[in-house]
């Protein structure tokens, strides 16, 4: 009910505003669709006509929004089914939903109701264009992931949308790439290596990074900025340069460990990769912990000292609990850095330390197998879960520090 009431008092003109804009959007869709039949211009023309029709129907049926929108969706879906397959029908339905929404949004004048009443038309236009650009940015960030996830359920061994997949037929889909990923040493050994290397490197980065951040936040440390710059440098220096340097730096170190201490080649390899990844992770920890320390009230440490606590007790009992969210998010960034890293491990590691990104890199180059897509999908989901954790921690930290009412 509430939606039907959303009609502005001053509605725009049909022929000079609603119809051309809807037609323009529809022509864009038509252009893309027409491209598939190698007739982009014809597609754009048909699209523009469909857009005009939708705008006209919307203008003349302002109060029957729900019925008209479902009608448009149904008509375009059926048109898609007639001229193509199930896949085009779904596209038709989505385009119908977008076009009819736009037509009503324009025709009812709803576009002008989210801005302050004193806005000029130009300001309203900019307000909506800005929102549209933001939407586009979001779309371009996320859209490339969708085909990757979709293709990971491919029943074939190629990165190809088969006709069965586009028709949403069961035989076009399979979980075999997930079985390949989860069931073979080829992928499980790299996963295991990644799960050994990343957590240990993270622990080292977090320990050293947190200590460095606390030290550098003291005003009496000489040359703070210079030390900070050096510690942050692994983030700024091109990775390939750091990797080459690390390769030549760690090779004699590894030889010494093997020859003098008699450690096994595989163990030494892990030590080298873990140390290299720890170096890459430290800057992220320093930056996040330094940011958290800005909001840390130093009088608390003085209060603790005045009550007889030594600096170590003060750190663990007072400072650490308050900066913990920063430490954890720094740790997560360090973990992701190591878990996603391919260049340094290719240089410093040997085949016994093959990590997941290494395996994906060589697999993508030598055999374009959708198993990589299955691995990527799993990694994306893991990354989303990690980032969600970071966000929840950030909110908790804000709440604790009283920055947001909750």
């Amino acid at each position, binding site marked *: 009910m509430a939606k039907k009431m959303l009609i502005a008092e001053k509605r725009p003109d049909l022929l000079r505003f609603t119809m051309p804009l809807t037609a323009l959007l529809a022509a864009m869709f038509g252009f893309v669709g027409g491209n598939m039949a190698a007739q982009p211009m014809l597609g754009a023309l048909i699209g523009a006509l469909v857009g005009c029709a939708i705008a006209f129907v919307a203008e003349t049926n302002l109060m029957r929004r729900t019925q008209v929108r479902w009608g448009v969706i149904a008509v375009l879906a059926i048109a898609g089914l007639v001229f193509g397959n199930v896949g085009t029908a779904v596209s038709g339905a989505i385009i119908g939903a977008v076009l009819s929404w736009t037509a009503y949004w324009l025709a009812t004048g709803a576009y002008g109701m989210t801005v302050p009443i004193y806005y000029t038309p130009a300001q309203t236009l900019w307000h909506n264009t800005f929102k549209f650009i933001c939407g586009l940015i979001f779309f371009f960030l996320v859209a490339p992931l969708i085909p990757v996830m979709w293709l990971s359920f491919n029943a*074939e*061994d*190629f*990165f*190809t949308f088969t006709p069965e997949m586009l028709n949403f037929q069961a035989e076009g889909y399979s979980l075999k790439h997930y079985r390949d990923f989860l069931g073979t040493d080829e992928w499980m050994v790299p996963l295991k290596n990644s799960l050994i290397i990343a957590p240990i490197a993270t622990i080292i980065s977090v320990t050293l990074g947190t200590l460095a951040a606390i030290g550098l936040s003291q005003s009496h440390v000489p040359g703070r900025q210079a030390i900070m710059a050096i510690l942050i440098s692994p983030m700024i220096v091109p990775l390939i340069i750091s990797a080459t340097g690390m*390769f*030549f730096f760690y*090779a*004699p170190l*590894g*030889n010494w460990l093997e020859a003098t201490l008699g450690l096994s*080649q*595989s163990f030494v*390899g892990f030590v080298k990769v873990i140390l290299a990844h720890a170096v890459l992770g430290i800057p992220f920890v320093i930056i996040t912990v330094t940011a958290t320390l800005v909001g840390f009230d130093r009088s608390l440490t003085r209060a603790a000292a005045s009550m007889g606590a030594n600096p170590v007790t003060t750190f663990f009992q007072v400072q650490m609990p308050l900066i913990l969210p920063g430490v954890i998010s720094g740790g997560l960034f360090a973990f992701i850095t190591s878990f996603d890293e391919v260049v340094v491990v290719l*240089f410093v590691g*040997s*085949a*016994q330390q*093959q990590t997941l990104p290494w395996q994906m890199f*060589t*697999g993508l*180059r*030598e*055999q*374009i197998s959708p198993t990589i897509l299955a691995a990527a999908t799993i990694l994306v989901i893991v990354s989303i879960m990690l980032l969600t954790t970071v966000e929840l921690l950030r909110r908790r930290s804000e709440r604790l520090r009283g920055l947001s009412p909750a």
Partner: protein
Amino acid sequence: MKFTKPILTTMALGLSATTSLADGHMASDMTLVSWGGAYQSSQINAYADPYVAMNPGVTITWDESSAEAVAKLRAMNEAGSITWDVVDVVAADALRLCDEGLAMEIDPDEILAPAPDGTSASDDFGDLLVGDCFIPQIVYSTTFGYRTDMVPAGVEAPNDICDVFDLETYPGMRALEQRPINNVEWALLCDGVAKEDVYDVLATEEGQEQALAKLDTIRDSVIWWSAGADTPQLLADGEVFMGSTYNGRLFAAIEEQGQPIGMMWDAQVFDLDGWIIPEGLSDERLARALDFIYFATDTQRLADQAKYISYGPARLSSAPLVGQHATLGIEMAQHMPTDPANAANTFLYNYEFWADYRDDIDAKFQAWLAQ
């Protein structure tokens, strides 16, 4: 009961002593370097798994780095830490590594098994033993595959190398490797140069211009590939009508994946792939590497590999032993690049020519691509 424990310990010690003696102090870890994909699986199935079954306690790690083997071996050599034991490379890379002293020189008759009938290894491998370090495994070829469903109606399927350059009869995109090797030879062949004159013509400035001019005629219809997996993917997508790649990749796409692709063997270019042993291994690791090589390059093992991939075994004595595909059960002989029906018109990659002219022609080709 009191005595049982020492006796068991002695027995265990004795046992471990005999095993280590039988191994002749060989390292128990070995890193093999190969190309990944179906080719590496064929090596695992034909060589590595049987070898580990015979030598329990040996662990083999695979590194899919053959594509950058030369660069990596150089870096490892400079850093003084060689982590690879046996490396699979194409013959041209083996020659470079040998020249630079990064690969170990070998005496084939000393380290490789003779054929079952007693023929020496050097005779069994024959001409394929190029250079002083290379231990051949397979003969592969770079050849064309085409989409059978994209052949224009009323036209014969492409069966001549010059069909690649014939855009009128066979319109559509082509996939060619992004380097001059093979492409310039094919271009000259289709520009009226006789097969035996190709390299003489290519050695001249005008000949190189002529080859690039011929490639220019199809340039707008070419997608350039750089990894062996690209062309099968492009063919499966229908992005290209025909494309060059390694014959084993096409075999996998046709027979294992059931893609509508046909083979065009005309003017296929033979090349060799095989092992090298890096220079600078410790004695134990070298002993293990040599033991593996002796086993993995014998007549039966090379013939076994052909059960998993359609590359021809490098030994003469292996050819009669090539049987059926291990899982598909189809006769493999007819899918080998060396099969007489497929090898009616072939080229052997000319190592000397390309060693001398590669940098020069590469530069011209890349400049032409960038125009």
